């Protein structure tokens, strides 16, 4: 959810990445006991996408303005 929110509202991106990465690790360490790998990866990817977009946008602003 944080990942999807991060795409229109970039402020959520770091939290989405943090939350997605933490969930992914816990799922891996649980040996199959904890489910939700798809959601964790989706949140992580969406957060990364949003972060990259905002970084590029910010760098563009700094360079072009």
């Amino acid at each position, binding site marked *: 959810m944080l990942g999807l929110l991060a795409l*229109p509202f970039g402020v959520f991106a770091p939290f989405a990445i943090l939350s997605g990465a933490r969930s992914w690790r816990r799922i891996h360490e649980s040996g199959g006991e904890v489910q939700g790998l798809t959601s964790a990866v989706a949140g992580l*990817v969406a957060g990364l996408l949003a972060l990259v977009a905002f970084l*590029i946008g910010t760098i563009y602003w700094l360079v*072009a303005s």
Partner: protein
Amino acid sequence: MIARVIVAALVFLIALLTYPGALAVSLATRFTPAPATSPGPQGPLPWLHVAHPRGDMPYIADDQGRMVLLHGSIPASLLEFGPGTGSAYSIDPVVYADGRCPPNSPSSRYPPLCQADLAAMAALGFNSVRLPISWSLLEPERGRFNTTYLDRVAQLVDWAGALHMYVIVDMHQNAYSHFVAAGTDVDLGTNSGAPGWATITDGLPSRVYQRQRELNPAVLEATTNFWYDRDGIQDEYIAALAFVAKRFRDQPIVAGYGVYNEPLFGWNLPPGFEDLLLFPFYRRVIDAITGVHDGLPCWSGFFMPAVCGYRDLGVDDRRHLLFLEPGLLRQVTDFPTHLGLPISSYPNLVLTLHAYTHVFTIEQLLGQKPRTATYPWGGFDQTYGFAKREAQAMAAGLFVSEFGNSPADDDLLLTAQVREQELHLTGFAQWPWKENGAGWGMYKPPNSPQDSSGCLHVSRERLLARVYPRATSDPHLTFRYDSGTGAFSLTATGRAGDAPTIVYVPAEDRGPIATSGSATSSVEAGDDGSRTISTSPTGGNFTVSIGPGTLDLKGCP
């Protein structure tokens, strides 16, 4: 497996519709070559365009490549305000022909706009007029455009052309529309814009909070429905603007079009409002009018995400300037509320600033006084400094399309604004030209109900009938006008053969003219007592100056 595909598709889709997609399309426009254009028909004024010096600030330029400064005012008489329907004055040009002027209407906030008004503007040295028009009068019924209204606009364009003034046709709105319902603290007499059929409030209550006409749930809902193209109303707006652009396609007196006045965010938060809704809307307007294809091919008629471009509406206008405003929140905070992403490959874009520091900026909502205000931290310069950076990032020129204040504050607010405009080399449009009652107009209120105004505010004449360079080949020139003494100095650099720098001197200033340095100069006297200094560089630095003296002011204190 299916679940993973669905989730991946969902992430991709949302990314496409939001910032990652918007960013990709915006950056693509930066690398898309500017569309080809052809020279327009000759007219009484040269065509304007936006020059893009490499690594430098874009600026409005004439056909000789000179930076052009536009000074002007804003008559609001062609707008339709509420309650009810119909303009306060006839929109039939016949009523105004041969110098005729209808009587002032006490029920209207603004007097009628007549040929004598344009002449008075020109006499103050204004070389342009920003002409606001109402969508509600242009398209009172869905899909049916009012050609009589455009005839009236064309009449004003003709008058302006005869006086060598440019016209910026401005699609105006205030608090979206006067067709929102009446309600607590709602003054529909200050609302204008969308026709009734395009005002979709979804039954939300119409009441004003904090005495701000925009802070009205019905206004916010109707505005949001516009940005999301509910029922295709955004498509209709684009078609209406295309209808106007088609009429003036070959008319150089029309400098360009203001696409949307003071865009309200609705229920959307910045920076998403501008980056994902407003600026993509501008891109679609540009696509429709110019025929460039900067956005992705998309549907129309309902919500179009940021990546969507728009179909060519067959106007093929690639010569006029398009004046684009950032969101209203940026205008009242004097602070960028967007990422400044490029909008289009169309080169003739001008970012417009509404400079209302200490008038509408947020500290005023908190009850602070202009002289003791604690915001903006950067003073009057803050909004200009940021606006230049925003414009440069968006590859656009910069223009102050509105500023104004109560005449009682001229010594502080108006004085500071015109000084900032000199420092930042921006033209201006002052709001409004005339106003009934104790308003912000250039003139005092009328002495009798029939008059369109009282006498000219002497403080406004002093500050706005200025000496200024109308055109120059040096976009880095510096100049300073002292409105107390009429003294003026300009320093510029030029190469031999550069087009001359043109300095306008209003009739009010009778001071002695001097030119020094690497230039030759001539002075032409106008019929109205004004003077025009034409200075041709011979290679190197030169100065143009006017000595101090007593200004010949005609207004009254």
